């Protein structure tokens, strides 16, 4: 006869183990994203040459590059649309885009998800 309660030993052992879960919103120390993590985008206006490859390749049309003056560009990124694939980062010939490790992007207001990276006036 096969008896029930096969996991007894392991279950009792768990009492002496450190819990696998964390108190997330209160303790964030454990949350270290890997180096290749694709989080919130960062745009470096000074590097952009305005080729708009990122706009062309973005699967979600989340990024818009605007020309404001000669050789000066601004980027609008809609984080609500962005799917964090980082294709724009890969395709950018001048490395003007960068994926950061930021991931806590929830917001109650949709407008806050639209961010603009302004070029610094020269």
């Amino acid at each position, binding site marked *: 006869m096969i008896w029930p309660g096969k996991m*007894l030993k392991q*279950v*009792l052992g*768990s*009492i002496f*183990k450190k*819990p*696998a*879960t964390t*108190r997330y919103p209160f303790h964030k120390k454990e949350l270290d994203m890997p180096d290749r993590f694709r989080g919130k985008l960062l745009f470096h206006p000074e590097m952009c040459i305005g080729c708009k490859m990122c706009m062309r390749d973005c699967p979600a049309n989340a990024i818009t590059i605007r020309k404001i003056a000669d050789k000066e560009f601004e980027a609008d990124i809609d984080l609500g649309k962005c799917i964090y694939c980082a294709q724009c980062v890969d395709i950018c010939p001048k490395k003007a885009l960068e994926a950061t490790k930021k991931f806590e992007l929830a917001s109650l207001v949709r407008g806050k998800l639209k961010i603009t990276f302004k070029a610094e006036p020269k």
Partner: protein
Amino acid sequence: MLASLISIFIFPGFMFLVVAGLAGQFIDRKIYARLQNRIGPPWYQPAADFIKLAAKEDIVPDEANPGMFKAMPIFALTAITTSILYIPLWRDTALYTFKGDLVVVLYLLTIPTLTFFLGGWYSTSLYSKIGAVRALTQLFAYEVPLLMSILAPGLLANTWSLSGISQFYASHPWYWLVNIPGFAISLITLLGKLEKVPFDIPEAETEIVAGTFTEYSGRLMAMFKLAIDMEAIAAASLLAAVYLPFGLSFNPVIGFVIYLLKVLFIITAMSLLRTLFARLRIDQMMSFCWKYLAPLAFVQIVLNLTLKGFILR
């Protein structure tokens, strides 16, 4: 008059049961979580849940019978509060006692299950109805072994009064060891009474949403949840009084601590049990109760009768 009102509403009646019920729920959830290698809820979680539910709007389905629908949670609470008055907690006598109160307590503790059935049935939702029928079917499965195993110690003590049982075991120490198989059976069937894994068939969430409680919300739901927590304490007290009748002769404070430890032990054992198994199907549960538990309970009764006949003449 005042004294009895206090004992009914405050201690060891309603208020004590509420506090102990919420504490019991916390302990159960915390242990369950730790056994699963999780952190578990903070200590105020059960109270927070209760307050949150109580602040919500009660929604009564159009089709439901509003009288029955609303009355059921109150019936459940009342029955449990009444039952605790007859159970000796830290002394060898209960607040109120009469011949045969053991049977009355057992039936008072059956009333919540019946209210689950009626509440589910009168809310007319299909999930509730299936849950209600399952609750009743399950009642017929676990009630017999539970009854037989709880009556066995009484047979040995030659009384069906809870206070009488306590007094008998206080004067005959170590005799309670005979009842350990019965204790195990009661613990298992108690899981069925409190609708916990592996016998949470009436409210199996992956099958019938929340079973009998599907249509309940707000305060009525809060009351039902509270009733289950209180029932856990009342039933644990009953088991403690019947199967663990020791340490009753100290002063009230130490006696009370010992009583709490006994309840804690029973709750812990139930948490451990519900960690270990998968939920059974209703037919498997029936056959398990009738094939294994009922005969075992019967053996316990025969054992106790024999013991009584030959040794305690």
